């Protein structure tokens, strides 16, 4: 078993050192013999054991004696640990590929491939929003009435529901990816702005509602524009009016709609519907009912939509 453990360790060390590369080759030879049920008679085990014992004996004779006695069982322990950690590593790699985190979808535990946890960053809801902290298991679309929310390709069988905030950087990073996916696979796409970052987004929610009511086609162009422009522009009233005019909206009608108490009521109702999903930060994207929190890589959404080999389809 020692040669198998050595092969992995020396293989990694061999990347940096020629002498370890040679030892890795020898251990590979030994491994190949073992896996083909031949005796490992290359002397590799002996050589490594001697080197290790030689290193230990000058520091502690007792330690070397003990090591010599338990060398084989110790090799087995290391082998089992190696296998377990290998399986764990492969699992982590698989989960990272499919969910953007080594520990599973939306897990914020440390992941070596995403050490800063960028795939899970969100603009979180404040306690004042009266949303209790929730977990992945709580996130759901069940019981949420999505009628009246902006939706594209409403009849498509695959459905994406996107809860985001125009001012949230993580939403802004995620939105283009999801839009790309929607375009490619023509899935049903529901978007709801949830004003999470600061005050003006309340206005944006009402504007979004009114724009969708006025013209659905122009609404999606507006949405795309809001997510592609510099964030500062969203707070610039003049830029906003010019842009809306440019997109062909009747701005005076829009402004009236935004200011109307009925609009505020509807917006609040929609936000309350969103809260029912138990989401705890933006962006939260439901892909066919499965919630993803934070800006995931494109592949994560694609895999949820089309499976592991989405790129083959």
């Amino acid at each position, binding site marked *: 078993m020692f040669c198998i453990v050595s092969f992995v360790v020396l293989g990694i060390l061999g990347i940096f050192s020629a002498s370890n590369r040679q030892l890795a080759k020898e251990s590979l030879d030994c491994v190949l013999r073992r896996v083909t049920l031949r005796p490992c008679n290359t*002397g590799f085990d*002996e*050589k490594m*054991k*001697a*080197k290790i*014992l*030689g*290193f230990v*004996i*000058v520091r502690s*004779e007792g330690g*070397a*004696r003990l090591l*010599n006695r338990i060398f084989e069982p110790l090799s087995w322990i290391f082998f089992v640990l190696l296998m377990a950690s290998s399986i764990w590593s492969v699992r982590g790699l698989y989960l990272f590929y499919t969910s953007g985190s080594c520990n599973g979808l939306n897990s914020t535990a440390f992941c070596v491939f995403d050490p800063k946890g960028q795939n899970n960053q969100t603009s979180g809801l404040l306690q004042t929003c009266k949303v209790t902290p929730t977990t992945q298991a709580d996130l759901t679309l069940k019981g949420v009435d999505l009628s009246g929310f902006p939706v594209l390709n409403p009849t498509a069988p695959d459905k994406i529901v996107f809860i985001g905030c125009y001012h949230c950087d993580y939403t802004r990073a995620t939105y283009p990816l999801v839009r790309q996916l929607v375009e490619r696979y023509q899935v049903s796409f529901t978007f709801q702005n949830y004003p999470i970052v600061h005050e003006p987004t309340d206005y944006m929610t009402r504007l979004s509602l009114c724009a969708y009511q006025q013209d659905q086609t122009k609404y999606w162009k507006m949405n795309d524009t809001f997510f592609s422009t510099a964030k500062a522009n969203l707070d610039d009233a003049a830029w906003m009016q010019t842009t809306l005019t440019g997109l062909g909206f009747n701005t005076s009608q829009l402004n009236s709609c935004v200011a109307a108490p009925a609009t505020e009521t509807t917006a609040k109702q929609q936000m309350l519907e969103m809260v029912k999903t138990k989401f705890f930060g933006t962006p939260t994207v439901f892909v066919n009912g499965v919630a993803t929190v934070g800006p995931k890589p494109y592949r994560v959404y694609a895999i949820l939509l089309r499976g592991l080999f989405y790129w083959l389809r």
Partner: protein
Amino acid sequence: MLQEGAGRKKITYFDNACQTLRPKQVLDAINQYYLKSSACSGRSMHQLAAEVTRECDQARVLVAKFLNAAKKEEVVFTRNTTEGINLVANSIGLQKDDVVLISDKEHNSNLIPWQMMARKHGILVKIVPSRPDNTFDLDAFEKLLDPKVRLVSFGWSSNLDGVTIPVAEIIKKAHQNGSLVLLDAAQSAPHHKANVKALDVDFMAFSGHKMLGPSGMGVLYAKYQLLEKMDPFLVGGDTVASSTYETCEFLPPPEKFEAGLQDYAGIMGLGAAAKYLMDVGFDAIEKQELLLNEAITAEIKDIPRLKLLGPADPRLRGGVVAFTLEGVDSHRIALMLDQMAAIMVRSGQHCVHSWFNAHQIKGSVRASLYFYNTMEEASLFTSSLKKIGKVL
């Protein structure tokens, strides 16, 4: 090399039976060729060629003096002991049913050439068994001597256990039988005075790299009248005085045995090594080796499970301390010594596979000493070995 430095801690070099280290004088002689007179010997007429010819000739004189040969032409330069033995095997005209006697613990260099001759020419190779303590059995040797024995070929000192055979008696008895004698002196030339004239030995082969000289350089000593009768083994450039499309006229010995361009630097280095050893003196060399061997033997003989190869008396083992540790692979011990204290010894079967296989021993550890080794090194070796004995 023996000093600490260049990313390496101070070494204890106990692998002298494999190859010795070289003194500065030898390195200087080698360098001198490449730096000052790098040209062909004996072919060209210019001054550089003349200088090389003179230096090589001087080296041959030094080696002849080292051996106490009757004349320098009895010294044939070879690549190593193996080539010297092969030269004899292929050049003395062995016929079918001729018998060659060797001992039961010959280095492959003095075994395989005879096996090949048996296969190709039908000679018979007979083995003289050693005594239980691995010393030479003269009685067994005498019993095998008969008129069909054309040649006896023995290792003078064994690389297996350091045992030196009684060459004077062997040569005397062989000559009485009408047999030629070839000595594999690879392990004896560096340690014992070789007086070929006094011994009346017919052939003697040895290597430069075991006697402070350069690697890839060796010597075959042979009586001149034998060399004259022998056919050359390797032929070509430098072996002939003239040639036609049909035939050639060989040069006299030793040139007819030295085919192709020679290792002039190696020859000069070997000459310097021979001179160095003569200056040090074999009495001093043997004395220091014995001192070290006695000290080591006394310290390690009581290590549990340790078994010395060869006789217990260090005086019979020259500079060699070979041993096994029951139940422990010899390579493991060698590697541990290296890892622990940079002590360099040889492990395995030392090119004497036949003996190990016959005795069903997997391998041994061999510490081979030379005059430049010290008592401190011997002490480090024994203390390290004792630790290993306790741990393994």
